[in-house]
């Protein structure tokens, strides 16, 4: 059906069918209740949103507003995680909006075999995020011996600081490569992302590795444990594991425009 009264269908994920009653109480963007749109052996998880708030101009403006972006991202994520807890799930990009459920059905129909192939690949697997940081504590230089002049003392201290920081960064980069190699052994796939800015993350230390691993669900704990062990073995670096996530980073290109 097409949505009445200027409503559109916001699509969160494509999944293998499951009992819609299991999504009772799950709310999406703007607190709207989510529902399933089914086509053969696929479902799309959608909720109604006001058409006018998701047209291109409105969306462009909203994406620049962090409070809106955060609330929407968290709502999107909450639905995706709820679906992922119930079925094999292919998360969709934030703000994928259709004029109505008929259009959603059409998208499922056109992308049918590609969605199915993607879901087959993701079945029983989860995404784990791993970040390696150069620990700022380890980069703090030892106090150099006092010099005769304050100016020379200052320059010497600055040089020592720079050297220490470069050394720490190199150690961290080497440790990060080791961590990545050791964890990739347990994973079926990996995606490297640009390191996160400490300004944005608020994290201590410099992010030298930011990677997502796709791992068989029963090996997720093993990967996290190995990450902790690697951290303990590498002084001066911190290893942070997040997840399990729905496989956001391993969603293949299945755009219907290539149909």
């Amino acid at each position, binding site marked *: 059906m097409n949505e009445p009264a200027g409503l559109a269908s916001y699509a969160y994920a494509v999944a293998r069918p499951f009992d819609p009653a299991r999504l009772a109480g799950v709310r999406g963007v703007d607190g709207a209740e989510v529902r399933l749109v089914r086509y053969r052996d696929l479902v799309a998880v959608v909720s109604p949103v006001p058409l006018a708030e998701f047209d291109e101009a409105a969306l462009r403006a909203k994406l620049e507003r962090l409070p809106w972006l955060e609330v929407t991202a968290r709502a999107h994520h909450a639905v995706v995680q709820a679906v992922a807890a119930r079925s094999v799930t292919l998360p969709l*990009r934030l703000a994928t909006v259709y004029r109505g459920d008929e*259009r959603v059905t059409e998208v499922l129909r056109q992308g049918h075999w590609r969605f199915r192939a993607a879901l087959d690949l993701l079945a029983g697997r989860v995404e784990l995020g791993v970040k390696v940081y150069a620990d700022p504590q380890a980069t703090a230089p030892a106090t150099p011996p006092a010099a005769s002049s304050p100016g020379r003392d200052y320059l010497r201290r600055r040089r020592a600081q720079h050297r220490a920081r470069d050394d720490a960064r190199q150690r961290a980069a080497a440790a990060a490569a080791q961590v990545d190699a050791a964890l990739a052994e347990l994973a079926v796939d990996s995606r490297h992302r640009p390191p996160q800015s400490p300004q944005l993350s608020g994290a201590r230390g410099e992010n030298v590795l930011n990677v997502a691993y796709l791992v068989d669900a029963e090996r997720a704990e093993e990967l996290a444990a190995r990450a902790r062990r690697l951290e303990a073995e590498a002084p001066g670096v911190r290893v942070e594991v997040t*997840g399990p996530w729905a496989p956001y980073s391993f969603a293949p290109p299945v755009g219907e425009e290539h149909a």
Partner: protein
Amino acid sequence: VNGTREVALVDLLDRLLAGGVVLTGDLTLAIADVDLVHVSLRALIASIEAGQER
């Protein structure tokens, strides 16, 4: 592995704006061309700067 703790926004945006299947929506046709990560980072940086000025 943390299943319950609220996830960091920056980790979330890493995934929601750079990951996920990209379909051409009806209302977001041109958004596909917009560098969403760039947009979001600009918003994040602006908010951090605003916070620091306070």
